[in-house]
């Protein structure tokens, strides 16, 4: 394992120090592992808190700032954070209008955020949670922990963040977050596995020309393994999986996301294919993101996330955002 780290067990602590040093717009509580806006809570604004295992950067810390999250709680690499972090975050961001937790659907995240919700409630902070579960690769929710939360998290954080910034109340912010999740789907394809610093070994092994179709952001297995195919075919596979689950029409927001080890030039090729396939279906890409937004360390591959836009979504998507990883309109 070759990594730019000091030691496996200081990865998150060291990276948080780097993040703090690099971004004066962020307040980083190194002790409690909470990243929040330097300017603190705004009175009357719903506080948005998210978090999850580290290794998915820029998610979530890179999305803390005006128009998006108020705080992020990074766990150890690929390990959900602990309730104390979310409790600290809730205290840090509460502006009296309550706190919305944005939780990716993994057992660990769900349980830890749930405990935090109870603890914060005990302190009189009103906390609600919304679950993101957009990964259509998980087919059978009855016999699994349910669909995983992946790319739609970025959409939920941006759109709910914009609504919160406008002063909407907790119920409204939670409702839009749920609606974004309900109208979004993702599908990922990996060309290689990631190695966590703690384990020192790749999470799975693929053959020379083999790919994992439907992979999760921690390298969870997908629907099947198959041979590498052209960008056009891979885009089609991902898009079909999404369209079969949620027939597409009208205007969509598309994210072609790199898993951390994928050259940007390849993501643009995938985007070209997605654009062509959607155009052939009469679906319009009204907004897009192409780049590394929710990664899996150095995993190679891409994930495709689509959201069926509403007028409100588009307006909130376009609203100003000023975070380390997403920034426009301000």
């Amino acid at each position: 394992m070759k990594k730019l780290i000091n030691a496996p067990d200081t990865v998150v602590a060291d990276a948080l120090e780097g993040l703090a040093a690099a971004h004066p717009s962020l307040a980083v509580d190194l002790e409690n592992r909470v990243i929040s806006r330097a300017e603190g809570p705004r009175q009357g604004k719903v506080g948005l808190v998210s978090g999850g295992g580290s290794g998915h950067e820029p998610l979530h810390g890179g999305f803390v700032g005006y128009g998006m999250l108020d705080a992020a709680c990074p766990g150890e690499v690929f390990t959900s954070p602990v309730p104390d972090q979310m409790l600290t975050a809730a205290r840090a961001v509460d502006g009296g209008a309550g706190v919305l937790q944005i939780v990716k659907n993994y057992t660990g995240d769900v349980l830890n955020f749930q405990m935090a919700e109870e603890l914060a409630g005990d302190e009189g902070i009103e906390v609600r949670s919304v679950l993101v579960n957009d990964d259509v690769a998980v087919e059978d929710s009855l016999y699994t922990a349910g669909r995983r939360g992946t790319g739609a998290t970025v959409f939920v954080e941006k759109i709910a963040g914009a609504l919160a910034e406008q002063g909407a109340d907790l119920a409204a912010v939670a409702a839009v977050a749920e609606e974004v999740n309900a109208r979004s789907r993702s599908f990922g394809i990996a060309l290689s596995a990631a190695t966590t610093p703690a384990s020192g070994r790749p999470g799975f092994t693929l053959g020379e020309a083999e790919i994992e179709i439907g992979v999760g952001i921690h390298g969870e297995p997908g629907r099947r393994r198959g041979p590498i195919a052209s960008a056009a075919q891979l885009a089609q596979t991902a898009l079909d999986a999404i369209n079969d689950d949620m027939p597409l029409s009208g205007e969509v927001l598309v994210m072609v996301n790199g898993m951390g080890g994928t050259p940007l030039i390849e993501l643009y090729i995938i985007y070209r294919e997605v654009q062509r396939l959607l155009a052939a279906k009469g679906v319009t890409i009204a907004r897009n993101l192409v780049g590394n937004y929710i990664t899996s360390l150095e995993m190679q591959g891409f994930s495709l996330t689509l959201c069926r836009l509403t007028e409100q979504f588009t307006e909130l998507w376009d609203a100003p955002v000023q975070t380390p990883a997403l920034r426009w309109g301000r």
Partner: protein
Amino acid sequence: MSTPRSEAALDTAFFTAWITRAAAAIETDRVWLSELDAAIGDGDHGTNLDRGFAGVMRVLDTTSPRTPATVLSLTGTTLISKVGGASGPLYGTAFRRAGNALGDATEIDLPGLASALDAALAAIRKLGAARDGDKTMVDALAPAVAALNEAASNAAPLLDALSAMVDAARAGADATIPMQASKGRASYLGPRSVGHRDPGAASTVLILTALRDTAAAVGSDVGSNGSDSD
């Protein structure tokens, strides 16, 4: 039929010794636990628990819990604060609820211990919503708790009861191998989860074995020191 000998007193020192032994067992087997988790999960179960129990040891070393309940409660709270992942809230809440069940008593009897573990199991079941056969820690803990309760209701000697509990936990953990996971990260593997031991079931065996071994160590100490006074 067991050879009668002195039984360990289930006092605060005993519970502290149990947790200490459990922490050591987890540390020793952390790589194995993570490897089990790598096969069907994300490979962090050993690291997670070890981080948690190391934290527990720091807390127990710097506080002087007065009751068995406090020992378990501190253990639970610390696990919740340190582990993360699915197992953190599950084990953490289990230890807290077990602590609650012990009340203020400074010494616990076998039925008391059995109902504390009852409470632990119930907590995990409630929080994780796992049914028997879902290939989780529940599949080790449930039969273990059942065996302990049965032994307690038969007024079995402590060590026999705990040994029965460990045997049942082991059998339960072994039984997870052919199961298909339908809870937690392993569930994403579907049929491919078959053929692997559930890491949470494995760590449950370690923790319960530490309980039995603590009793055996204290019991045999007492037994050998005190045999002529019998």
